[in-house]
Structure formats: structure tokens, C-alpha cells
């Protein structure tokens, strides 16, 4: 199919170069971190994997919405709301009941955020405005459900996300599976199924999608529903990690900004239709991993935000220069 034998490799690099680059950056950062601390072992792997879970899930959800041509500023509110609700409801329950609650929370949030997508479609109000509002609403609900930090969950539920009933341990498998399995499933779903492709199509060119018979309305609703479910999963992961609920607004706002940073760093265009969930997940883990690294090299934690911001700008600039060079050559 290709004109020259060298083409496939170059083509692959052009299509997936960004994703590969972000994963490479993650590997380099983790390797560097390993040299900075006295002992790097399964405890550290577990720590990175499990503590990244909320931001990873949030980024997957944000990625699906942004690829579909939207943006969801309500994911942070959704995270603290589900965290609060889960901690409140799960406190003192058996594992079976806790799992039922988890499934119920996921289904309810998918429905709720699907409704948000529907409202955006029907009202034609920009995504950013509607989801900014829902973010406030969700955050308010979080405080109504759980006015102050508290609540709890079952040990088995904590094991599911962290690898131990107490939330502290060296068994990294559950957390690693929790990162890789949803990532792989969503990535495949997006590029293999007609629904997934229609999300890419709607984000890429809504008019052309409509003209070629794609149900753009449905694609957007589905994207928001999936985004909402993953924000809820992030809330559940937070419940499992901390063993409690915390409805503070700043946690949600911070998480939301990180999810946008992760997808941008992960190579997803804010204009929609371009990028992959796989890259966004690597970027999300990078954003988390920076914290222990900066601590390890002795940076004041207060300056770490500056470093994060600087990194995003630097990476985006390198990307811009590479793109410019590619265009010049063509």
C-alpha cells in the first residue's frame, strides 16, 4: 500500500510519535526518580500507580470529551461529589454492598453527565459555560452530602485500587491493572467501534460528520456520559485511596485543571478530533510523578507548581517547533 518501504515507520512515528514521546518521558522521569532515592522497589511502583489513579481516570474522561469536540470543566466537581457520596454511603458496609454502591454511582453519574451533553446540544450554549456551571453544582452537592471530611469504605474496596486493605503496601498489581485496563479498553473502543469513531468524527468536523450521516448529537451525549463515568471512577478511586471523603472545593478545582493539563500534554488537541487516550494517561502519570521527584531533589513544594507549568510550556514549544520543521520540509 505504501509508496516506499521506509514509509510505514515514518508514518507510524508521525501518527503516534507524540504518544510514544510522552511515554518515553514518563520512563525517563521514573528512572531518574529511581536514582534519586535510596531504594526504589515495589513500594514506590505501587505508590506511583495508585496515587495516579484519580488523575488518570479524570484524564481519560476528559480526553473522550475533548476528542468529541467538547470540554468538561465539571469533572472536578464530579470527583468530589462522588467521593463524598461514596464515603458517606459505603461507611460500615460489607464489600458486596460497597460494590453495588460503586456500580450505582457510576451509572448515575454517566446518566447525569449524559444529560449535560444533551443540554449542551439542545441549548447550543458553549460546552465551557455549561460545564463550568455543572462543576459548581456538583461541588455544592458534595458539601450537602458530606459537610466535613469523613465517611469510610470497605477494606476489600480499598484493595481493589491500592493492593491492600489498609491502602498502604507493596502489591502493585491491582493499581497497575486499574491504570492499564481502562486505558486500553477506552483507546480500542474509540478507534475500533462506530460509536468511538463517531466521537472522533464529531470532534474533527461536526458538519462533515453530519453530512456523511454520523449521528453527531448522540456522539456528544455518549462522550459526556463516558466522561462523567470516568470522573466518578476518579472519585471512587479517591475514596479507596484515602478511605474517606473530602468535599473541599479546591480539591476538585485542582483536579480539573490537572486533567486539562494532562490531555494537552498528552497530545490531544483542544479543538477536538486529534490525539489518543494512551498519551493522555502517560501525561497524567507524569504530572503526578513530578511531585515526589521535586521533593526528592529538594525543591520547595511551593515551587513545584511553577515547574509543572514550565514543563507544559516547554513541551508544547518543542512540539510546535517540530511541527514547523515538518511543514517546512514538505
Amino acid at each position, binding site marked *: 500500500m505504501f509508496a516506499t518501504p521506509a514509509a510505514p515507520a515514518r508514518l507510524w512515528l508521525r501518527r503516534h510519535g507524540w504518544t510514544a514521546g510522552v511515554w518515553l518521558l514518563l520512563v525517563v522521569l521514573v528512572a531518574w526518580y529511581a536514582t534519586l532515592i535510596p531504594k526504589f522497589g515495589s513500594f514506590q511502583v505501587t505508590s506511583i500507580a495508585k496515587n495516579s489513579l484519580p488523575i488518570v481516570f479524570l484524564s481519560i474522561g476528559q480526553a473522550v470529551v475533548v476528542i468529541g469536540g467538547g470540554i468538561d470543566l465539571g469533572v472536578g466537581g464530579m470527583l468530589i461529589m462522588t467521593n463524598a457520596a461514596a464515603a458517606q454511603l459505603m461507611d460500615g458496609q460489607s464489600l458486596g454492598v460497597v460494590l453495588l454502591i460503586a456500580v450505582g454511582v457510576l451509572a448515575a453519574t454517566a446518566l447525569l453527565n449524559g444529560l449535560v451533553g444533551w443540554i449542551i446540544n439542545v441549548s447550543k450554549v458553549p460546552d465551557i459555560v455549561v460545564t463550568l456551571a455543572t462543576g459548581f453544582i456538583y461541588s455544592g452537592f458534595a458539601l450537602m452530602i458530606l459537610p466535613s471530611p469523613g465517611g469510610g469504605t470497605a477494606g476489600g474496596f480499598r484493595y481493589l485500587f491500592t493492593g491492600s486493605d489498609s491502602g498502604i503496601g507493596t502489591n502493585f498489581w491491582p493499581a497497575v491493572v486499574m491504570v492499564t485496563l481502562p486505558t486500553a479498553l477506552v483507546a480500542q473502543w474509540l478507534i475500533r467501534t462506530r460509536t468511538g469513531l463517531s466521537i472522533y*468524527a464529531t470532534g474533527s468536523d461536526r458538519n462533515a460528520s453530519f*453530512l456523511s450521516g454520523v449521528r453527531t448529537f448522540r456522539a456528544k451525549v455518549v462522550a459526556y456520559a463516558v466522561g462523567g463515568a470516568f470522573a466518578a471512577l476518579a472519585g471512587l478511586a479517591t475514596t479507596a485511596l484515602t478511605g474517606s471523603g473530602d468535599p473541599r472545593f479546591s480539591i476538585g478545582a485542582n483536579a480539573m485543571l490537572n486533567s486539562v493539563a494532562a490531555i494537552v500534554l498528552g497530545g490531544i488537541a483542544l479543538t477536538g478530533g486529534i490525539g489518543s487516550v494512551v498519551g493522555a494517561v502517560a501525561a497524567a502519570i507524569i504530572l503526578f510523578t513530578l511531585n515526589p521527584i521535586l521533593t526528592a531533589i529538594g525543591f520547595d513544594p511551593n515551587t513545584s507548581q511553577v515547574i509543572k507549568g514550565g514543563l507544559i510550556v516547554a513541551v508544547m514549544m518543542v512540539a510546535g517547533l517540530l511541527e514547523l520543521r515538518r511543514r517546512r520540509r514538505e
Partner: protein
Amino acid sequence: MPDAAPGPGNPVTGPPPLLSARGVAKRYGSVVALRSADLVVQPGEIHALLGANGAGKSTLVKILAGVIAGDAGEIAVNGAPVRPRAPSDAMAAGLATVFQDPALIPDLDVGQNLRLTRVDEAAVREWLGRIGLGDLDFDAKVRELPLPVLRLLDLARALAHDPQLLMLDEITAALPADQAEHVFAVMREWKARGRSVLFITHRLAEVMRICDMATVLRDGGNVATVAPSAGDQQDLVAAMLGDVVDEAAAETATHAVPPGAPVVLETRDLRSTDRVNGVSLRLQAGEILGIAALEGQGQDRLFDLLAGDRRPDGGEILVNGQTLHARSPYDAIRQGVVLVPADRLMALLPQRSVRENLAAPLYNTVGRWFGLARDEKERVQRAIDRLSIDTRAQRQARRLSGGNQQKVVVGRWLAAGFRTLLCFDPTRGIDIQTKAQIYDLLRELADEGAAVLLYTSELQEIPLVCDRVLVLYGGAVVDEMAPLAATEEALLTAAHGLARPVGRGG
């Protein structure tokens, strides 16, 4: 498979027509886009839908295709009433459309685009083979493919849906002549299968050649339904334009460029990657120099280089005898070399007003804090008057018709001042009346001493407007002709690289 015998498309009294639309109307607020249109297409018929810009052709097609909902009227396919609410409904009813802008998703590859619309990939592949695109890479991103390929891919996809009626909106507008022939062949084959084609075009020669029937719209209503034959091309034009005098049949005049007119633009062995391979040309003040080429012969890159949008890899560009080192179009514009690009929306600020669009190049020279000086406002007004731009929809340039948008793009340079005008396919998809106005304007500008370099994909128009024609093939100039010698045939032969090279270029 409801394959009827390949009948000659004679109006049968018994069975209902393939498509019948009666009294279709559409209004946007107070603006009437379609008053009341009737359209009847018989099985096994190639039916032309004609009309000047704004006559309502596109609105009618969009209603038939389910893109917009009509306010009134009845549509029936094979006698059964249909009311398509989305393009997928129209497709289910047997109506497939190839729109003016390809309905393909830029960020997906070809295969993904096909999977998205649940079409038989093997059938698409087969049709692509018949229209000369058998080697299209299904892994290629749509964004990376040129527009003509996208048009044909869209056509192959529509054919693979196996529709009763194929609706083609201006499909030949951006197609080079050789690919247009492939499309005509497919249309004839579709007819031979007893299916029908609705063909929307501005090119009457094409209508004369292949259409069995023609419906002419004007001001949102029917004015004529005729069987085109070689004799009545003028009748069709008259029907389309109403009382407007036919300006399109301009005389084929040889405007002598005054001897000794200064050379304002010159290129010497200009090169850019493998697209432009040593182009040397000289453009004098007062001259309209035509560029004729099939698609993809480097003409777009040549214009980019001249407009300062890209730096050449070799050779040089001289403006008024001085080497041009343009780092961006800004530098070229300062030297008086300005571009009217093919894509009007690329040059316009679509959300802004007509006046702001016209004044855009003046902003650099504005030395005051508050807006434009009075004489600059006057320059803008003069440009509007001179081009007779219809400014009723002036609040946002994107609301103008295609022809008026193009006038704004040209008018911007009138207001700003220029010496060399580069026009890249300026009349693509524009009705013949506006087209004539644009060509008249180019001639006027040349008479006033401007130099014009004109590329057009419509070869038959070259002898009408140009003083001299260069034929580009494989990124090099292969022939030069006087307008009288530049018949469509001669140009096509040369454009295929068949004529004897005149020794220019690499």
C-alpha cells in the same frame, strides 16, 4: 436490485418518476431562499439543476438530502412520499449526495471514514478504480489528501451506497479536466443502469454534453425545464439570468500589452522541493498572464512562493527588478504583490464586517489611535462602489454569497493598493454573472497598469481573459501560447505534458 432496462429516459406515463418534488419552499426569517421549486427526475436520466448563485439550487439540494428541513412542499421517491430529517434518512430513501465540501472527516483515515458510514469498502475500492484512484491508500489521513481526491472519494462512497438518485453539487468545480472525464463516465454508466443523476453545475458546456434534461431556477422558483441541445446554450443562459445582458460571451480580444511596459514580476529558475522545478516567467505591467495546468502540477506552490507564504529552495523572485526576500506575505504585500487565494474563507475574516475585511490590509499603515482616517474610509467605500458588492448582509462576511465574498477579497487589495495581483482560481463555484464581473475587473485593473497572474481550473475561460498563457506541467513551464491559440484542446494537450517542451525550466 430495482435495475430497470437501460431505457432512453423517455417520460413514461405509467410508473411514477424516480424523484418528484413539488412546491418545495424554505425561508430564513424574512429572507426567502426558495420560493416554490418543482423538480421531476425520471429513471435513467442525467438531470441538470441550473441557476445563478442565490437562485436556490443549493437550498433545494440540501432539503432533498435531509440537511435542512423545508417549510413546505412534497417530495416523493418512486411515488412514495419521503421527508428526510437527516442525511442518513435521505440515503435510506435512495438519495446519495456529494456535497460541495467533501463530507469526510479530516482527522480520520480513509478506512475509518468508510467504517463510520457503514459502507461496503470493497465497493468503494471498485468505484475508486474506475475513476482512476485505484491506488488510494486507505490508511492515509483525509487531511493529507488533496481536494480533488476527496471529491472523488466522496463520489465513490456515494456510489457504493448504491443510490437510486445520485446528487452531485458542483462536483467538477475543483476537478482538473482529466478527472472530470472520469466523473462523466461514471455518470453515464449510472444512467445505463437505469439510475439517475442530479447534476448541479455552472459549466454549461458540461450540461450540453451529458445532460438529458435541465431544470433552471431563478430567484427561488422554476423558470424553465428543457432538454439541452447544442443550439440553445444561449437560451439557458438567458433563462438563468433573466433580463441581465449576457456578459459572459466576452469577445476574444487580444489586448496588446504596450511594448516597453516594465516587467513588474519575474522569476528565475524558481524551485521548491519537488513541486516547482525551475519556473522562469516574466510578467509585465498591464498584462494578464494565465497559468494553465492540471491539478497538482505545482501551481499552488508557485503562487505560495510568489505571495511570500513560503521561501523558495532555489532561484529568485524579482519585483520591479529587485530581488524579493519575503519572510512572510507581509513583505510581498509591501512590494505590491498580493494574493487572491482559492479558498475565499481563508482570506476573509468570516465573523467580521465587510468594511473591516476590506480595511484589513490598511491596519498596518494606520498611524492613529482611533480607527481609520477619513481618506482610508473613502478608499474602502470606493472599493465597495467599484465592485458593486452587495452589502445587504454586511455585518458578517461569511453571510455573503460566494461571488460577493470573492469580490471582497479582490476589493481589499483595491483599497490597499497593489501592483501585481496573483489570482488563484478566483471564480471557482461562482455564477457566470459574477464571474464576468470579476473578469471585467481584472481587465480594467490591467488596463490601469496592474499586472495580473491568473490560474484558473476552467480552461475554456483562459482565452477570454488572458493576454498570454503559460502551461505548467510537473512543476515546470512546458508551453507558452497566445490567447487565440489557447483553445481548450490545445491547453489540455499541453497540460498533459504531451506537447513539445519549449525549453524552459528543468
